[in-house]
């Protein structure tokens, strides 16, 4: 629904965002990942129309016409409000700016205040809000005009564990109504609540795709075994198998690196059954997002050093 083409932003020879292109399809929750300073915020702000790109375009596809901002909800990393307003007043103000009538804006505001869980403090001045309340109000104001694309910049990094949980649950619900693009450097959150990821590093998108396809692509062919007794004696037998390239003992477990996971699973399980191995744990190696993140970022860092 939104296509970004060759988007770049250059600040005094520093390419904050370097020629990125991607397409977001509707109804998905996409995580924009990357270490600090990777250019996530700059990319989001260009898409929201807050800063103009040095080159490249951001386009909404389909029957969307007019101001791109009508279809986008945006929450900056550190939202600030008119602190002399009440939460409800601010939402109504934001709604009216997005072409809602006064009545629509008011009913939508009440609805959202309930939804993000700050209805009780709606008539309190924003200056008296806690950080968590402000973040919730921020999400509410981004949703006020039912945008088709919701962009959240680090929506949970500033929250305590409870607030984080609440916001992640809220995002889970919102997924059904709108496309969500959010940036984060917390990998657990991304793994938990996103369908697709875009991984940025030094202004470039270095990996993208659905989480499962990424994991497939970066699959480590590894099987982890744990026995009731010491793994030493089994290690030799494993080493003799054709599919096994090498083994590695880590305390109680043994990591078996293999050439073909499916074949290796069958062979090892057959052997274990035949010889009555006292298996405690049998785990097919699955790469976590964290492994992937480190792998990609480090491989780029290494490549940079070689150059």
């Amino acid at each position, binding site marked *: 629904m939104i296509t970004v083409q060759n988007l770049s932003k250059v600040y005094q020879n520093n390419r904050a965002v370097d020629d990125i292109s991607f397409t977001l399809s509707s109804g998905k929750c996409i995580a924009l990942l990357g270490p600090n300073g990777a250019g996530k915020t700059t990319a989001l702000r260009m898409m*929201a*129309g*807050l*800063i*103009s790109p040095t080159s490249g375009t951001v386009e909404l596809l389909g029957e969307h016409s*007019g*101001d791109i*901002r*009508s279809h*986008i909800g*945006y929450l*900056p990393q*550190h*939202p*600030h*409000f*008119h602190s*002399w307003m009440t939460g409800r007043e601010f939402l109504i*103000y*934001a709604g*009216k*700016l*997005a*072409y809602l009538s006064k009545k629509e804006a008011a009913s939508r505001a009440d609805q959202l205040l309930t939804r993000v869980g700050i209805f009780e403090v709606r008539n309190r001045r924003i200056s008296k809000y806690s950080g968590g309340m402000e973040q919730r109000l*921020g999400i509410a*104001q981004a949703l006020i*005009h039912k945008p088709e694309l919701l962009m959240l910049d680090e929506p949970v990094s500033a929250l305590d564990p409870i607030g984080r949980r609440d916001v992640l649950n809220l995002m889970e619900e919102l997924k059904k109504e709108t496309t969500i693009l959010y940036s984060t450097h917390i990998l657990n959150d991304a793994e938990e609540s996103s369908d697709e990821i875009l991984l940025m590093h030094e202004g470039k998108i270095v990996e993208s795709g659905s989480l499962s396809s990424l994991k497939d692509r970066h699959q480590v062919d590894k099987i982890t075994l744990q026995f009731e007794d010491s793994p030493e004696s089994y290690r030799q037998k494993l080493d003799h198998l054709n599919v096994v390239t090498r083994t590695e003992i880590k305390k109680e477990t043994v990591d078996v690196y293999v050439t073909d996971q499916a074949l290796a699973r069958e062979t090892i399980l057959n052997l274990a059954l035949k010889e009555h191995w006292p298996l405690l744990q049998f785990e097919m190696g699955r790469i976590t997002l964290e492994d992937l993140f480190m792998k990609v970022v480090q491989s780029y860092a290494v490549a940079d050093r070689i150059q």
Partner: protein
Amino acid sequence: MQWLTVFNKELLESWRNFKWIWVPLVFILLAITDPLTTYYLPQILEATGGLPEGATFEMPEPPPTEVFMMSVSQLNLIGVLIIALISMGTISGERKSGVAELILVKPIAYHSYVTAKWAAYTLLIWVSTFIALLASWYYVNLLFGEVSAGSFLRTVFFYGLWMTFILTISIFMNTFSKTAGLVLFFTIALVIALNLLSSVFAHVVEWSPALISSHLRNALISGELPSALWGSAGTAVLFSIILLAAAAYTLKHKEIS
């Protein structure tokens, strides 16, 4: 519709932070100080014992129009500073704090955002100027003699244009810098420069907006409207429009924060 939303929000903000109370009050104080002190100067001198024993003190009573003009001059000095002060953060402050990030990602036209803010402050300034000069006019009529209602209204109108022009400069500066202090400095600097240049080259730049108050003085004394006054007023309006358009343009093409 959106324009009205921003306009109403600005009025509410000025009301909540008491601008609608203190600005008119300060303007009234500025405007009535001169008529009152001029009138009561003999009594004040007597009470404070500033004269030696036996000395008599005769003050020529100034004409009413002259006293009324004193009020305008007072407003001209400190009123300008107040206008620059109350408006120095209206856009720059929102950009600096980050509120502008939330407002300007909503589909609002930049020119609506700028002109609605400008209009809200213009209203405040015109109301304050009107009330202040009304108070001054009342005391002048009471203590010195008649200044015609026409002269009073004419002064409010033309002087209001000059005040609006200063406000517009400040709004324009707001889109240039995120620092309110710099906005204040540039606004005041520009107004002072304009005043200086206009009085030095008064004959060359007869239609300079900065000459409105000096043209007004002539108009009050002669009771006629010199064409230069209209000229100055015209340039003030023209430059205000240009500055507003430029402000909307800069805001749109500048990084918002």
